[in-house]
């Protein structure tokens, strides 16, 4: 893993006096899928949200250490510009109550793009990349809320792709979907990893095994501060973990 896209160095995060993340050091490789796994409350979602600074929106959050994107300190960047480079897909599909077209065009528009022809190009390209184009190409004016849950989630992925990020963060993107929709999302993640660095939080061990190249196992002790226990290639984590806690979690002894 020599091409590290995202790097954290002794990174800690506090909600007021409560420490949610403790001394995390990780190097997330470029154009690979990295899964963050661990029991509930271990801080993996909070950690994910550090990469696009969504935690900034919560009052009382404080961080220590550093997070680097392409070698540059994230916390010295403009958060608005950062979020155009680091896209995010949420647990519950959250298309805007707007048309499919306007959902995808939203990101390019807020950065000032008005040219209708270019917007049409971006919408088509993004929908194709998210494997949704064939299903919606004749109904781009339909509200995004009228799509099925799985389609909504692919719409949200397309929406994130439209601003041309290099990193996509996914917070349990299939947690609210049925098994067939879940498989489609997983296929899509696999395909997208050719061009994007993807970091995905998941509760589903099989999913982590199926979609990810690397896996990070988070765990929390009695202090309730989330820590990174082990980070390695996914097949190593699942077949030959070096930490007893990882093995216990993988084999379902707790969590």
């Amino acid at each position, binding site marked *: 893993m020599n091409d590290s896209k995202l790097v954290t160095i002794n990174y800690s995060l506090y909600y007021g006096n409560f420490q949610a993340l403790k001394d995390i050091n990780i190097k997330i490789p470029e154009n690979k899928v990295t899964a963050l796994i661990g029991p509930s409350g271990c801080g993996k979602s909070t950690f994910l949200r550090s990469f696009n600074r*969504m935690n900034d929106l919560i009052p009382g959050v404080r961080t220590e250490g550093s997070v680097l994107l392409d070698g540059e300190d994230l916390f010295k960047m403009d958060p608005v*510009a950062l979020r155009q480079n680091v896209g995010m897909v949420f647990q519950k599909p959250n298309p805007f109550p707007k048309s499919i077209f306007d959902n995808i065009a*939203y990101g390019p528009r807020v950065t000032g793009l008005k040219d209708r022809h270019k917007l049409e190009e971006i919408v088509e390209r993004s929908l194709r990349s998210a494997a949704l184009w064939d299903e919606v190409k004749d109904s781009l004016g339909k509200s995004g*809320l009228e799509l099925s849950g799985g389609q909504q989630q692919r719409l949200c992925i397309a929406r994130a792709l439209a601003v041309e990020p290099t990193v996509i963060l996914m917070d349990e993107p299939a947690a609210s979907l049925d098994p067939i929709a879940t498989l489609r999302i997983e296929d899509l993640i696999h395909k997208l990893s050719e061009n994007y660095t993807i970091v995905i939080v998941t509760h589903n061990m099989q999913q982590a095994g199926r979609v990810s190249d690397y896996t990070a196992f988070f765990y929390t002790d009695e202090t309730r501060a989330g820590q990174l226990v082990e980070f390695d290639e996914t097949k190593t984590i699942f077949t030959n973990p070096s930490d007893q806690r990882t093995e216990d979690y993988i084999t379902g002894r707790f969590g």
Partner: protein
Amino acid sequence: MSGRMIVDKAVKVVLFASAIISILIVLAIGFFIFRESLDAWAKIGISEMLFKSVWRPGQDQYGILAMIVGSVSVTFGAILMGVPLALGCAIFLAEIAPAGVQSIVRPAVQLLAGIPSVVYGLFGLVILVPMIRKLNVPGNSGFGLLASSIVLAVMILPTIASIAEDAIRAVPENYRQGSLALGATKWQTITKVVLPAGKSGIIAAIILGIGRALGETMAMIMVIGNSVIMPKPLTANPLTFFLSQARTLTGNIAVEINYATGLHANALFATGVVLFALIMIINASARWIITHDQRSSEKAR
């Protein structure tokens, strides 16, 4: 039957009776006003009343068009000034102000709703009217649509601000997160996602504000001048329209009912019927917008 079952039954009956009584009161008021106005509609004629603007009870001329225009104009003026202010307040409270600031600003705005309308009238009379009188326009008395629109704008502010704030807060948090995660600024998120998503509630807030403005009486009597004239610009400049005096539907009733008898009294009740109808239309449209939008967004989910 055990004791608590009897209490349970009795409470149900009492609550049902309370609900019925409030409906009956509304119906009774409507029926009473309408019955008292019947003679006016019959003897003067509906079109004579609604579309003529000469109101001379001494000569049995009862056109209320000037008052309808007066009420609508002052309401329009109040909306023009009050809505941006109220929405600014609502957006600030719901999206921008930290909790500490909210806990000062929100009670202050709500306090405006508790001030008696006669006090607003006094404020208009003592502060606004003399200030407006200084504008050097022939025929400008200081009393009129401008002074009353300003007073009314402040009076409807708390109604619109608090309902619009609730509407903005009801917009799901994940819309905001989705927008911010795409690299939108906070202000872009508010104007392009939050306000459109809360549109129906915000429109309902404005409509309820209109209803409140149409019904206001005391403060209007004190600052609008009460001349029964069709409001019109005082000079060639159309903006001087707002320096014109006027009378509202509510003011017409309150000013004259004490000495009115016979057909004159009937005509004042007819004024009340028109007001009643206007406010019912306004409230019904607010209700329709809220339920209609809820239904369409539920269907989408």
